């Protein structure tokens, strides 16, 4: 355990614990943002420069803000006091333990763990770019189409239809 692993790990755990325990929802979101940043640090410490920075860009820059907007628009930031444990905490606990066991089983059985010893410095950003444009161009394109469809879906959901509304109101 090196220092470059311990510091992000501690930040991550504190953030995750705070996100669960704090009463105010906006505080929880900020603690969750800290967790995201901790993940980015962890990736950077493991030598995955590109992944770490993209984690920071996407999660801290976009997803955290998205959650903040959601919390504020649904009025979650106003009602401050609530119980730490919900009445159905046991079901949630069982479910999360099952998910943890499933993930752990998958990771230990996967082929990634056997290749973990390869040096991390052998993956520069240019190589990732090369692979995305050659070997993995089809998944990239499919993802692009998926995201475009999601964007168009969002616009369709958000767009106002003034003509129909005026007819109904009449």
């Amino acid at each position, binding site marked *: 355990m090196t220092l470059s692993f311990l510091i992000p790990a501690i930040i991550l755990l504190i953030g995750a614990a705070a996100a669960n325990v704090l009463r*105010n929802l*906006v*505080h929880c979101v*900020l603690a969750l*943002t800290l967790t995201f*940043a901790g993940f*980015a640090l962890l990736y950077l410490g493991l030598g995955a*420069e*590109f992944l770490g*920075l*993209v984690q*920071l*860009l996407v999660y*801290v*820059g*976009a997803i*955290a*803000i998205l959650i*903040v907007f959601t919390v*504020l628009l649904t009025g979650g*930031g106003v009602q401050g006091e609530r119980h730490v444990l919900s009445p159905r905490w046991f079901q949630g606990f069982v479910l999360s333990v099952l998910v943890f066991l499933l993930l752990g089983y998958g990771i230990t059985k996967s082929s990634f763990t056997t290749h973990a010893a390869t040096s991390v410095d052998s993956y*520069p*950003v*240019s190589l990732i770019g090369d692979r995305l444009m050659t070997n993995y161009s089809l998944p990239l394109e499919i993802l692009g189409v998926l995201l475009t469809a999601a964007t168009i879906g969002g616009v369709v959901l958000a767009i106002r239809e003034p003509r129909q509304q005026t007819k109904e109101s009449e």
Partner: protein
Amino acid sequence: MNSVQYADQIFVLLKQWLVSLFPAPLQTAVGILITVVTIICVFPALFAVTTILERKGLGRIQNRYGPNRVGPFGIFQPIADGVKALTKEDLVPANADKIVHFLAPVMLVIIVFLAYAVLPMGRNMAAVNMDCGLLFFFAIGSATEVAVFMAGWSSRNKYALLGAMRAIAQMISYEIPLMLSAVAAIMIAGTLNLQQIVEQQAGYSGILPHWYVFTPWGLAAFLLFIISATAESNRSPFDLPEGESEIIAGYYIEYSGFKFALFFLGEYLGMFSISAIAITLFLGGWSAPFSFLAWIPSYLCFFGKLVAMICCFIWVRGTLPRLRQDQLMNFAWKFMLPMSLFVIASAVCWRYAESWQRWALSLVVVAVPYLWLGHGMMNNRKLEQRVYRYAE
């Protein structure tokens, strides 16, 4: 090394000499410390110079003197401002979320300073020579939105929250054209490393340098980048989050004393760093503007360009009126975003076409959408002399 190279590398050599005074185990830490302290000293000093320059410049544009009481021609005004900010009472609203209210300005300034780690300020003069430096800059920059939200939310003030929401909406909208216009430069340079991007623009044809801004796609991308940068740093004409007339001062309305000064500092430092990225991507970084000026030390070229950019920002602030919220969003999504996609297409033409055809092709791919989108933005309105109903 001859004298020109010595002048160019004097700060690098100075740092090496200072580091060599310390015992070997400490040298890495001391090297980092020297770089960090230098950055923390130089850029706030530039901030102080900019405040007086801005107040004087805006004063001249508005046909008045500007500050002229403190020292000769008012040049010691920043010191007076600093003393005032430090000695002012630090007020925290009774209902405010004390911890988040305190952390917001601190976090903003830390994030803004982190971005300086990758800026190449001269030949061999970047704190960290990172493989994906540009990505680091954008990743760090995107975290400022969280700090802005913290400031706006923790103040428990509806104007502060409105200002924060405006700022975040604006930053998210303009981040997209900002990054897409940078993508054009990345595609041509073929690297995310900022120093290599500068090196790609080295060399001269005749006396003119090979900067990206002197190509059709580069000029368009540079203009898009600068407009988005103005919006990102919440400067006029995109200073709606501040909106004095309707939401008083936006997300930092409940901050006083030095916390307010930290927001002010963060805003200006953000403007400097994003200008430095624009210089690096499109204006050749630390290279000299003409081949016969190549003897000028690289850091002087860089800071000269930076001051020139700041002056342009001040000029724009003094000249253009503030946008309305719907105009702001329409401009971002209906003009800037499609235009930046066309700029990328234009960069592709530049990359794969030959000799004069690349000029023609990339010019057409930029100019035709510009006219088309511009026509769409005009919305069939005609530009004519403004008629004042009540003022005349």
